[in-house]
């Protein structure tokens, strides 16, 4: 059974005339790593927020169609129920800290206290998620005294501790320096290996190409294509949607180097493989 089923989803923010999401349908399987790409204001964040119920419950506005997580219909549920299944991490690490706790340890506990996890289990879960995100050494620090990358890892740990089955990351590294981004990507890879379903909006197209099982291409509130990275990035009119393909895809396009399925490679590994194959043809 699909983990997430979206059918004809439409959404309009309050006091706006245009649809932020226009008739979107797709399915995501358990454990998949999904990337979302598209220009600014193409509806990526809105789509992310519709999975955890912020759309429509937090913003209100106009809503049509349905989003179903396992067997819960988002429209009929609420955010405090959905947040036990779906976790959301967004851009600004600073705004994700609750701002009411004095140490990292207490900060991670915030969500667990709210959903009524017994104290012993709470401590166990906090320790587990701090270890996973490698932030144990900041345990007693004030969250606001950490660097952006460290803070973002605290934000992720706070979500992990709530044991969601789906984690949505909405441009988690866009406000971080390269070192901070790398920290976050490594953490996300670990989560994916744990079997958690991951949906990630990211501008760093190379990262999407390297990590994702499937990619969604969005444009003006519509879902243009939902397929494997090489299928999506091999689209001829990709630039019409404001997206530049990964560097190796561009090179291979110029060289007309195609894989067996007629698509271009998207990562250095794929390109190397392809080149090796070509060379062995020539040698034979």
């Amino acid at each position, binding site marked *: 059974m699909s983990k997430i089923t979206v059918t004809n989803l439409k959404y309009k923010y309050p006091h706006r005339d245009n649809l932020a999401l226009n008739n979107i349908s797709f399915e995501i399987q358990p454990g998949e790593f999904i990337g979302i790409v598209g220009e600014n204001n193409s509806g990526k964040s809105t789509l992310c927020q519709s999975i955890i119920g912020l759309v429509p419950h937090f913003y*209100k506005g106009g809503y049509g169609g349905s989003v179903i997580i396992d067997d819960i219909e988002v429209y009929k549920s609420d955010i405090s129920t959905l947040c036990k299944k779906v976790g959301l991490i967004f851009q600004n690490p600073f705004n994700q800290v609750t701002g009411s706790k004095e140490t990292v340890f207490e900060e991670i506990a915030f969500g667990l206290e709210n959903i009524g996890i017994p104290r012993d289990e709470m401590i166990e879960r906090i320790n587990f998620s701090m270890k996973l995100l490698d932030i144990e050494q900041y345990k007693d620090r004030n969250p606001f005294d950490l660097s952006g990358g460290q803070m973002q890892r605290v934000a992720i740990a706070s979500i992990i501790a709530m044991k969601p089955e789906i984690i949505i990351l909405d441009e988690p590294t866009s406000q971080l320096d390269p070192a901070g981004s790398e920290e976050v990507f490594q953490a996300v890879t670990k989560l994916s290996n744990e079997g958690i379903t991951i949906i990630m909006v990211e501008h760093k197209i190379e990262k999407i190409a390297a990590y994702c099982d499937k990619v969604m291409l969005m444009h003006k509130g519509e879902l243009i294509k939902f397929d494997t990275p090489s299928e999506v990035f091999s689209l001829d009119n990709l630039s019409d949607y404001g997206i530049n393909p990964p560097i190796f895809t561009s090179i291979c396009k110029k060289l007309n180097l195609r894989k067996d399925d007629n698509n271009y490679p998207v990562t250095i590994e794929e390109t190397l493989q392809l080149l090796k194959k070509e060379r062995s043809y020539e040698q034979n």
Partner: protein
Amino acid sequence: MNTKKWLSTAVLVLIPACIGINFLGKSFAEALHLPLWLDSIGTCLAACLAGPIVGAICGAANNLIYGLTLSPISLVYALTSAAIGIVVGILANKGQMRHIKGAILTSILAGLVAVIISTPLNVIFWGGMTGNTWGDAVYAWAVAQKLPMFIASFFDEMVVDIPDKIATILIVFGIYKGLPKTLTSLYQSNDKIENLND
């Protein structure tokens, strides 16, 4: 106590932000040596954005927190701050904060209410003085003229509060006008989800 029904999370988060803004206004006024307090900008903004009840909560919580941390004195004036929030909230709900004339009217009313509530508090707690140099000079003059202490205290508070509230509301007006509609609608709790199914 169930707060969920009438206070959305967005509104709850607005309150500490506005208390922080109060603090910021006060600190900048002190740093620039202005003869005004400017310590209720946040309360008035909260009232404009989320209505009189939230304005009142913001004002009262503001003084409660200062009272319990930095200066116990401000605890006494929690009532005044709450009243300012209510007045500004009611007038903003009536659309007065959308034009400059209405803003000035709001500021004068807020100032008067502040004076009316603070004066008895001043009299009860400190014999009618405010601790503000300008105001207390007026107080001393009035008492010397053999005016009743209550009247003297009223003048004392008025000299301090009316100009302060006019300046505060004008600043609030300037900021409120520039806020995006997507943000201001977040604090209106009466919105319903519209059905877009065909």
